[in-house]
């Protein structure tokens, strides 16, 4: 496997967010704080879930930690490197180490590109030896391996995105995210757009890949049941702030913040019919 990009500094957490804030211009002269003084660390090999509803700032936060958006205050450190202090070329090189899988499997792929080129994009971006016609057989071989690791046959390489179901597309997205051998993968609601049966397969796949490659995950979700299944730690976001952060079992089992309790109470439970009185309104 080819590993490119900046060397990690020793004895530092994989990802450190320190006093991170981001303001946007609102209507008129108002300003909105989408992310408000967030301090979080993500350790090597763990899964941190970012939980929040719409408007909680979780999307802005992921864009900040991926270096796609500049913070108004605070720092993002990836493997010890402050993203703000990097030159554009250094930043590009560092991106090999952190990849992202986005929610919508339909808009996350260029409809006019074949699977080979979609999955290979991080490869050709970060490894010059994969460029050009003569590298093509080697490239296809590598893409084949990546597809196999996400449970797709090699023969899909020459197909276009529209020929796949949502679940298959999300597997292709995951294969692409793994192509540059990243250490950190940001999973932005990767299963929210999928059918439940497919969702559970994709979650299993993600857990398996994490074990195989020793990946670190930042898992963004609004679904607490999914978070409970995959995350080691949970950070609950509300209006740009982290209201509660800790071990998954602790946060979901004994939530301290009222908002976390409200979130937990709102999750529909498949056994709720037992506690309901026939024909009445909903039970708890």
């Amino acid at each position, binding site marked *: 496997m080819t590993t490119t990009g900046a060397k990690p500094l020793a004895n530092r957490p994989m990802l450190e967010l320190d006093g991170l804030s981001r303001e946007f211009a609102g209507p008129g002269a108002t300003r909105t704080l989408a992310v408000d003084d967030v301090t979080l660390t993500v350790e090597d090999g763990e899964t941190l879930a970012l939980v929040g509803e719409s408007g909680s700032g979780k999307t802005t936060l992921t864009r900040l930690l991926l270096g796609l958006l500049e913070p108004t205050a605070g720092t993002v450190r990836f493997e010890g490197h402050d993203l703000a202090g990097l030159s554009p070329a250094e930043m590009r090189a560092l991106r090999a180490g952190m990849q992202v899988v986005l929610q919508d499997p339909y808009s996350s792929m260029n409809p006019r590109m074949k699977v080979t080129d979609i999955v290979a994009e991080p490869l050709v971006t970060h490894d010059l030896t994969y460029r050009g016609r003569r590298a093509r057989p080697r490239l296809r071989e590598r893409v084949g391996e990546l597809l196999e690791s996400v449970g797709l046959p090699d023969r899909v390489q020459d197909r276009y995105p529209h020929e796949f179901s949502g679940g298959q597309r999300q597997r292709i997205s995951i294969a692409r995210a793994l192509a540059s051998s990243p250490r950190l993968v940001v999973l932005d609601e990767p299963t929210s757009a999928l059918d*439940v*049966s497919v969702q559970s397969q994709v979650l299993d796949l993600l857990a398996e890949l994490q074990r195989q490659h020793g990946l670190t995950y930042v898992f963004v979700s609004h679904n*607490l049941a999914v978070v409970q299944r995959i995350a080691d730690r949970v950070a609950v976001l509300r209006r740009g702030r982290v209201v509660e952060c800790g071990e998954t*079992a602790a946060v979901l089992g004994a939530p301290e913040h009222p908002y976390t309790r409200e*979130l937990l109470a709102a999750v529909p439970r498949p056994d709720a019919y037992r506690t309901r009185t026939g*024909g009445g309104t*909903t039970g708890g």
Partner: protein
Amino acid sequence: MTTDAPVLEIRDLHVDFRLATGPVHAVRGVSLTAHAGETLAVVGESGSGKSATMLAALRLNPEPPCAYPGGQILLDGRDLLALPEKRLREVRGNDIAMIFQDPMTSLDPLQRVGNQVAEVLRRHRGASRAGAREEAVRALDEVGIPDPELRARQYPHELSGGLRQRVMIATALVGRPRVLIADEPTTALDVTVQRQILDLLAELRARHGMAVVLVTHDLGVVAETADRVVVMNAGRVVEHGSVAEVFETPREQYTRDLLAATPRLEPTS
């Protein structure tokens, strides 16, 4: 729950989409009933034909390419598939109404919310302009929109997703329909808002004695709100029964798989 004749009965419905690439049999012989005062959940994954079935109940699938090669859709015993378009328009909104997943695409972005509700009122009840406006504010109030006077003057984009869905429900209810079809009404919403909308639907159902048909992919939502459930897969009904029956003693492997795959929050302490 009532045991009298169903308000809505679908009998052996077939829905085809005749596309350039060949016909797609989206619905292959679906039968179901909805009774006044109950919530029927129609559950299935994408491609199960659940939405095509419920759109057919209002004849809202575009024809062509959609065609109905067989079956009946009986509303109080009247077959909607045999009605001409003009009569259908009287049925829609008055006897049977529908709300959708994304209220933003169902609301007119250039019209004030209050006007949109009032418009429906005038069409269905022949209310006067001023009367309709007042009535619209009352309708917004009924679906739990705070400060309805102010909200009525706003545009859809000024409202949150939850409020927009409430507006949709208000417009669906002004014709006092006997059947309300809700197609994934909370899928686009946050969990805390979803809970409120589901509660609202249950409350309105109890107050007006409507039949509510809830189309969803979420078995948690089914367990929270439905009386009976119909499980669909590949255009067919694979299982139906009371929620307790289907959840506790599912007969079909498909239902068991679906139940097993549903993520559930385990008690941790």
